[in-house]
């Protein structure tokens, strides 16, 4: 794969124009060592290491680059959710139940104030039993930056109050509205990203590992090892998924903290999800192990472990990358679906799926549409992962 490509011998110019060629033989001697001169750019290209080639190719896939950027932002949020969210995810304000998103203003009476929101006139409409919020434009509440707000434990360890953005001292800041208990929707979406986006990653790492190990062993050794893993895979695949998930989630103790529950769910996902990948790895290996280079490596005394992971796996890396990035979104959707069905995460844990459970009913669609906003990050994350996978797959085969 590396080094200069093979070339034909040097050729004299062909007879020009409309002249009849007839039977023509060059009488120059054949030079088997001829190499055309490479331009520096060509040289750079042909001698570049693979990762560089992949990067060059990937860079040209615009959508994939944008998606990668978006995912970087999302994972930045995952890491710093506590600081980025203006409120703690369970901080309630019973004065602001079902408050619609507040508009963010910059100018108050013609004067630039920086981002701020107006206070509200709150009214209980006892006729239709609805809370009515109207802007009170008399007094602006400027949003504070790099400030002290709700207490939290950063990553469950360090206690802190620092927030990047906070409501004004005597005001509130609900740019995406609040839910039925008066909790800030924005903060909950930010915290929800943590669970929803990492379930996918941790799960994929686990199921990829299992898939490559088990599939690799089955494909390389064949025979009994293959037979047994194939039957196990068939058994696992024949389980109806939903009832299985239900049973497994019911088995998770209720006293587990949300984080542990989420971890349990991730493992459940991974334990069920490796089978498809294992099959793909196995079939690829079955064909690749018959290739000459595999035979050569084996004759040179390479041990199975080295042959598989050094020679065979890199040959279908592009396939692995593609299937990994394409199954992350299905993991995200899976978590969302399970929570939506009430089987996955439970309140007080916050994930996008848990948030969407609240958007399940008719009232939300008709009266409180902002509660459906968690759909937006779900769609964005899933699309981004798909495009990224697309770009990576194209890039992983740089010479195509």
């Amino acid at each position, binding site marked *: 794969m590396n080094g200069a490509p093979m070339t034909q011998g040097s050729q004299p110019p062909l007879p020009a124009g409309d002249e009849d060629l007839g039977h023509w033989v060059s009488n120059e001697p054949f030079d088997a060592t001829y190499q055309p001169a490479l331009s520096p750019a060509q040289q750079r290209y042909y001698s570049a290491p693979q990762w560089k080639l992949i990067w060059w190719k990937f860079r040209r896939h615009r959508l994939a680059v944008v998606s990668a950027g978006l995912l970087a932002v999302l994972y930045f949020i995952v890491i710093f959710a506590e600081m980025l969210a203006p409120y703690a995810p369970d901080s309630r304000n019973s004065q602001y139940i079902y408050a619609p998103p507040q508009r963010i203003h910059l100018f108050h009476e013609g004067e630039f104030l920086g981002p701020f929101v107006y206070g509200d006139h709150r009214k209980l409409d006892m006729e239709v039993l609805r809370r009515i919020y109207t802007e009170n434009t008399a007094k602006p509440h400027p949003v504070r930056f790099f400030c002290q707000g709700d207490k939290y434990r950063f990553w469950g360890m360090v206690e802190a109050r620092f927030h990047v953005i906070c409501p004004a001292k005597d005001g509130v800041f609900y740019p995406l509205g609040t839910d039925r208990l008066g909790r800030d929707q924005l903060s909950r979406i930010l915290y929800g990203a943590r669970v929803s986006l990492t379930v996918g990653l941790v799960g994929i790492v686990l199921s990829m590992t299992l898939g490559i190990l088990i599939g690799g062993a089955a494909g390389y050794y064949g025979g009994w090892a293959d037979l047994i893993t194939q039957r196990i895979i068939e058994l696992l695949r024949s389980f109806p998924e939903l009832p299985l998930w239900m049973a497994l989630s019911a088995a998770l103790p209720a006293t587990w903290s949300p984080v542990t529950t989420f971890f349990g769910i991730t493992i459940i996902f991974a334990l069920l999800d490796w089978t498809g990948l294992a099959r793909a790895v196995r079939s690829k290996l079955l064909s690749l192990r018959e290739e000459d280079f595999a035979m050569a490596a084996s004759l040179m005394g390479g041990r199975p472990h080295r042959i598989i992971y050094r020679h065979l796996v890199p040959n279908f890396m592009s396939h692995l990358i593609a299937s990994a990035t394409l199954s992350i979104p299905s993991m995200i959707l899976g978590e969302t679906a399970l929570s939506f069905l009430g089987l996955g995460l439970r309140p007080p844990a916050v994930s996008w799926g848990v948030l969407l459970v609240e958007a399940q009913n008719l009232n939300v669609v008709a*009266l409180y549409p902002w509660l459906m906003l968690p759909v937006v990050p779900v769609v964005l994350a899933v699309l981004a992962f798909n495009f990224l996978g697309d770009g990576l797959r194209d890039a992983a085969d740089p010479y195509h």
Partner: protein
Amino acid sequence: MMLFRLPMISGALRALSAGALLLCVALPAAAGEMQETPSLALEVTAGKLPPVAERIPGDPLITDVDALKGRHTGKPGGTLRMLMARSRDTRQMNVYGYARLVGYDEHLNLVPDILKSVDVDGERVFTLHLRAGHRWSDGAPFTAEDFRWYWEDYVGNKDLSPYGPPRDLMVDGEGPTFEVLDDLTVRYSWKKPNPFFLPALAGPAPLYIYQPAHYLRHFHAAYTDPSQLAAMASAAGKRNWAQLYNSIDKAEYQDNPDLPTLQPWILRTRGTSDRFLFTRNPYFHRIDTAGHQLPYIDKVVFTVSGPSLIAARTATGEADLQGRYLSFGDYTFLKQKEKSSGYDVRLWRDGRSAELALLPNLNTAYPEWEELFRDVRFRRALSMGIDREEINQVIYFGLGIPSADAVLPESPLFDEKDQQAWTQFDPDAANALLDEMGLTKRDGDGIRLLSTGEPMQIVVDTAGEAQDQTDALELIAHDWLQLGIKLFIKPSQREIFNGRIESGEAIMSIWSGHENGVPSVGNPPWEFAPTTADQYQWPQWGQYFATRGVAGFPPDLPEAQKLLDLYQQWIGTADHDQRRQLWSQMISLYTDQVFTIGLISGAPQPIVVSRKLRNVPEEALWNWDPGAHFGIHRLDLVWFAQ
């Protein structure tokens, strides 16, 4: 106005006459004054149906509609549309129709309905008087024979009733003596008082002690050729004749269009369907003072739809009257569409003692929790640690009543002291109680430690059906943190939920309070004592009582035993004043002991009523038993203005 409360009657024989219902009414309308129902007129002139005067009993139940509060004499006709969630919901027609031997009126007095009168002697001997000339919906006479049939050919038949008479007919394991006095009079007598008998007849899913003998004899082995029956049974896919009989005779389900009935509307749709049609019973026994036979409405249509779609379909005006499957959370949405869809949304009051209640499982399988829950200080502390007013504001717009699991103000047994027992939000007092119990050790997060050294984490089981429950629990979780107690929610399905409680696996559950939140002195106070296994606060004690010691354990908490003693004293006496006193004693003891932690009572239930519909009360009680939901509010008096 003479309204009797039936079970008050003590000792002396007193008759309840149908006249008790009538308010300054002239004697039963003579034949000439009756008006033929327009929708039946054609069949009458064709000779297929006798004229109205011959269809109604000689002494019908006459309702002076205008004398009832907010109601007016109506016009016959129209089709009432309702939405249901399952095809089994045809039984709701029997609930809403609410024609009972004796039934509750809207003030929850027990009055004769199908019966002309009942004589009660010491709650032991019940003499039932039928209306002369009363007919089944197929025109056959309804007589004492139908009661005899039930008792001798149904209950007395080992194949049909392998377990003997139903529970409400048994007193200390003994059934009644049944006598037919004449064609229109039957008598049931027990050796000891049976206060359950009449309430069972008046239930939403009542005890049927009569069956249409003339119809069912064609399905009974003693009256019909067994080989013919066997052929019919196998054709219907049933194992034997008894199974066939039981499948066609499900009066409370109202699912067999051929089974004659006494209800106001008769099912016309055969088999399962997503649309069920009911038409008026031409032989119904109630009339109004203007000479109309009731019900006013000709047809009722049930459309079956997914339960989650019912609020949406109601909002588009697809139902003329709807309460079932609507929850308080739907109110705002329904109210918004009020004008465009042409209906009114009314708020009725839920009739249970508490819409939401926490039930600590005194029979839990975990000894450390059992010990805590049995300490009254712990139950009181939990109760005082809840900010009920906040729950009321957040979930019910302040329309409910923060309350213990006592009785509603509508009940004659209401006492404000019981309603407010241990319900004041006072975290300091609650913490003091917990400290006094010696639960002073806490972990790093400030959570108190159990005797086992584990943090105090209460897992509350829910049946996973209502959003209100989860919301309330999230609020309570926040409140209890101030007591150093963590709360977790475990949602599951109804069967698993029941199983976990009975096995003691669940330490606490959230459910509603007592079904009957508006008891009168005559209603047995069984819900306030450990009497049945489906009482989630003490399932084992309840089962012990219900099975007479075969399963479960006897209550070993003196206060629970005391409740049971008081309950048995109540059963043992028929004296009104004594019963009243026993009732009050039980409610006070129960609420003072906080056996269940009531949260909110009297929660509003939205009722959607088409603007064309008349005679539906503005405000009323929405309750299952007693109440039968729409049942006691007389659906037969509802009519369409156009």
